């Protein structure tokens, strides 16, 4: 998610000249993308809490008959909270950061094959 506009200036350096965007493509704004990991954590955090509460307060014998005896809402609620926690941990340990010059160079090296 941390790419820079420079990585996209390779128009026409491929085997055959082809314009990349239109004739006046503005710098890419892809670097503005938000962190998807946070969204996943939010989704499973909210789902986890709701299922946890459902599992604790409203598990009927009918529900247990459906699942073969286990408290599925409670189990999945806990599981989802763990998943949410792991994603948050990942975000905290490896936050999004702007690319370093070395990364920009690396992105360039990955560009079209040299002739």
């Amino acid at each position, binding site marked *: *998610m*941390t*790419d820079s506009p420079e*990585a*996209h200036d*390779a128009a026409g350096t*491929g*085997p055959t000249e*082809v*314009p*990349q*965007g*239109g*004739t*006046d*493509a503005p*710098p*890419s*704004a*892809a*670097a*503005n*993308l*938000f962190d*998807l990991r946070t*969204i*996943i954590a939010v*989704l*499973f955090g*909210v*789902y986890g809490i*709701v*299922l946890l509460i*459902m599992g604790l307060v*409203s*598990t*009927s014998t*009918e*529900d247990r008959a*459906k*699942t*073969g005896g*286990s408290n*599925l809402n409670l189990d*999945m609620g806990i*599981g989802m909270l763990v*998943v949410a926690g792991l994603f948050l941990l990942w975000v905290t340990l490896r936050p999004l950061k702007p*690319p*370093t010059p*070395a*990364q920009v*160079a*690396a*992105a360039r*090296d*990955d*560009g*079209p*094959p*040299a002739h």
Partner: protein
Amino acid sequence: MTTVLAQAAADVRLDANFVDYLLVAFYFVLVLGIGYMARRSVSSSLDFLLSGRSMPAWVTGLAFISANLGALELIGMMANGAQYGIATVHYYWIGAVPAMVFLGLVMMPFYYGSKARSVPEFLFKRFNRTTQRIQGVIFAVASILIAGVNLFALGLIIEALLGWPLGVAIPVAALVVLAYTTLGGLSAAIYNEVLQFFVILALLIPLTLAGLNRVGGWEGLKEKVTAGPGGAEQLSSWPGTELTEISNPVWSVIGIVFGLGFVLSFGYWTTNFAEVQRALSAKSMSAARRTPIIGAFPKALIPLVVVIPGMIGAVLLPQIQAVKAGTAPAGSDITYNDTLTLLMKELLPNGILGVAIAGLLAAFMAGMAANISSFNTVFTYDIWQDWVRPGRSDRYYLQVGRLVTVVGCVLAIGTAFIASGSQNLMDYIQALFSFFNAPLFAIFILGLFWKRMTGTAAWVGLLSGTVAAVVIDQLVRFDVLQLSSQAGSFVGASAAFIVGVGVALLVSMAGRPKPDSELAGLVWSLTPRASRSHSVEGDDAGWYRSPQLLAVLVLILVVVLYIIFI
């Protein structure tokens, strides 16, 4: 499946309550929110149509698999699990993983390295404009047809689960997909696909756990399947005679390995732009190569939570048991396709049921969004910019991209109603794949490894391959060839491949090839090894980011899985 699902509506109507709807609603808020937030990241047509080539590999890898994990796939494979048992895993292990690894290791350096923005544009670079245009138009038509199938099936599920009439459900579903893809372009589609991947797992995992609980665990399931109409044969993957409809075990294995494992699977995974596009949006060559290989890991594991619930459904659900035993009461509309929804109704209590409904809806949207977002890229770049209206400003093409998304969704509503006239959706889809993918794969693979292949040979080969597939389809349809529709689409795909390669060979002999200097980076033998590799610095450093290592790991995983489920 069409009339069947609709009429079975009353049987599968789920008892969703307030909490379930709340969970579904929350999912949709996030989906639309992603579309809205992704808007900030779009300032050029490349941002909109190819995410500015900025995605990390884990995101593109999961989106890659999610674009394939549409609900048709989910419902169809669970149905196969119920009908054929363990043998269904061939669709995943031999029918997908090797091709995904091949795409990452062998083909991605050419795709990503050529900086082509689409598969048709790659064909232009390797061959000529005519090939690009023909493939662009074929792909645009195919995408809209398949998007229509996904949309129709989504409408059916909404009708069945929530009771909305089809005429309302289809446009509403289209509107949601439209909203987030128009706002955020491919970034929104890809981000939502990753989210969808996790929600679909949140549907499949509890279903499998509760199902196993009910049948007495894995051992209990084995006992019950052995005692069932399919017998113990359904507990082993090889030779899969029931699946292939080939009674000789040796030929059955050959059929699976070459038919499913080579022609069908390589044709689908290596040239289908809806998939390849996810890898092209990756931020570096290394990330692009890792994309299909990272996607192969979930692809290898997903049958555990798709095929196994399918088998559970066949022994647990009285309706599916009756279908399997052939004792279903006359007039019953239940088919194997209903296994997933019936299992949800049977196993999931309120709460997790809402998550599961969200997952099912997500699966349908994933399929359709993949079709729409690849359609608008091909239409905008290959048909509009390179052909109809070249040389305009980027802003113009960005607007075209947005407008085409709207047009695509409206057309898909139309093709959804065409699909509603088809008796069996899976047959319809299979036929479309044999028409469009197999001939493309034929000219692709030939062009990649044979530098003498000419541009004229490419488009003539492409068209004659498609004609061959259509002819076979018609012969099967009118019973000139006595084949089941499944075997028919395989024969069609093989014919398309052979005819495509044959014609391209002959036409190439007569023509003059492109000079070698124009083919560097596009043909294997003319591409120096150095430019087929990728950087190993910065975000691409670390042994765990090596595409080759990941490829070996996923192939070992498949072998181990096959040994367990032999």
